[in-house]
């Protein structure tokens, strides 16, 4: 009950923030200081968005982008989760991969786009690989830290109770490191969204939210650009709140491994 009213209150606060920002934007757009072509009013953007939703093009672009994000993000989890766990468990694995991660991590994922285009051509492969590159490191580093922060008492207790390597891995280390693993997934997903739009601007053709924005620039279609940005923000927000929020509530918050913020 109180958790529900608390959530309602936080939604209301978020709505107030959005309304204030929207009002300020609308005032600037109507002030006459800026060319309407560069700063379209909110109703104009809304109409464009609505039209694009109706003819299905926005859905198509969003689905393409979403597909690329999920592919690259999924790939990053499949690679970085086991690798991060092995790095946390075995010093030789850590010794080999940590310098590699430290060297590659500061390289922005977008810097790879031209290289990947030469290697893999324009299109999905390049975009997905850029997303994969962006999502891998947050996942890897968080998992690695998570494994090292697993309470040694859990390992000892599990060992005395006869847990073998396999049981230790699935039934102690993964749940024990889950607060870090979930944080890693959150950060990876965020990085994936940032990377996909950038990669699509350069490497995608005909489909994808990033491509629409870049393409709209050619025709000075600011309304299309801003409508697409709104869709990007919306999908990211929904995923962050609904998917990761509920995942967290169903696992580590329920287990008391993290607490919900008090106020």
């Amino acid at each position: 009950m109180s958790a529900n009213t608390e959530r309602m209150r936080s939604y209301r606060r978020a709505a107030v923030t959005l309304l204030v920002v929207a009002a300020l934007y609308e005032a600037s757009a109507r002030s006459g200081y800026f060319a309407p072509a560069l700063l379209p009013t909110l109703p104009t953007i809304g109409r464009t968005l609505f039209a694009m939703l109706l003819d299905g093009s926005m859905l198509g672009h969003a689905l393409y982008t979403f597909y690329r994000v999920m592919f690259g993000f999924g790939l990053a989890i499949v690679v970085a989760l086991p690798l991060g766990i092995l790095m946390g468990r075995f010093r030789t694995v850590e010794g080999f991969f940590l310098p590699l991660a430290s060297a590659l991590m500061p390289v922005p994922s977008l810097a790879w786009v031209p290289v990947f285009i030469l290697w893999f051509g324009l299109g999905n492969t390049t975009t997905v690989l850029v997303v994969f590159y962006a999502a891998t490191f947050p996942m890897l580093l968080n998992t690695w830290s998570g494994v090292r922060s697993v309470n040694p008492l859990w390992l000892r207790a599990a060992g005395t109770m006869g847990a073998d390597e396999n049981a230790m891995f699935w039934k102690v280390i993964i749940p024990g490191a889950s607060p870090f693993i979930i944080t890693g997934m959150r950060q990876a997903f965020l990085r994936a969204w940032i990377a996909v739009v950038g990669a699509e601007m350069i490497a995608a053709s005909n489909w994808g939210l990033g491509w629409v924005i870049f393409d709209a620039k050619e025709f000075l279609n600011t309304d299309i650009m801003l409508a697409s940005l709104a869709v990007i923000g919306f999908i990211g927000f929904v995923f962050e709140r609904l998917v990761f929020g509920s995942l967290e509530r169903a696992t580590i918050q329920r287990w008391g491994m993290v607490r919900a913020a008090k106020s």
Partner: protein
Amino acid sequence: MPHIEIRDVSLIYDTPSGSVPGVQGVSFSIEPSEFLCIVGPSGCGKSTLLNIIAGFLMPTGGEIRIGGKIITGHGMDRGVVFQDFAQLFPWRTALANVTFGLEMKGISKAEREKIALEQLRLVKLDKFVRSYPHHLSGGMQQRVAIARALAYNPSVLLMDEPFAALDALTRDEMQRLLADVWRETKKTVIYVTHNVAEAVYLADRVVVMTPHPGTVKTEIPIRLARPRDPLSVEFLEHQKELLRHLGGEAGKA
């Protein structure tokens, strides 16, 4: 034949400032179903000794035999309860914590839940079967830990100051409960504590250790009828005797 024999066990810690003896030349044995307390001031190596018996640490000298066999590591013949409440798996309910060992043994789900339920009933927690550890009080968490250590039926229960972090009232209650559990299960128990009254209440025999390096100073049998009355004259006499052995200062107090 004694259940557990500890023969001339030593452990030397390698630290940056040189090697430090943790325990040195410790020998004693424990009979089947005996409740043995190891008492000593903090830093005397009593927890180290328990960790060696549990198989978490390898002794640098000597050997430990359980049922005649030399131990080489941890094993399911021993159940361990630690001091820290955080020893429970927070992602598992009380019941699922207790079933863990049985799960590792490959026992069917229905069977292991039945056994775990019995164990939780033994520690009077059958109402909290579905609770996660963070919803339980410290005393309750330690009771789950005891049930968990007993569930896969080890013959030895090793306890490292399990009630030291509890408030005095809860501690008394837990000691009574443990005495009952021990009477019903007939496990061989090695119980480490620095609390003299606790040792006199629980133990058949108390091993007193001296610090730096940890060696056995003396062994004192406690031949009081159970359940014991902590306010009886005999009880207090035993307590005084233990305190005397632990050091002149403490003995005078």
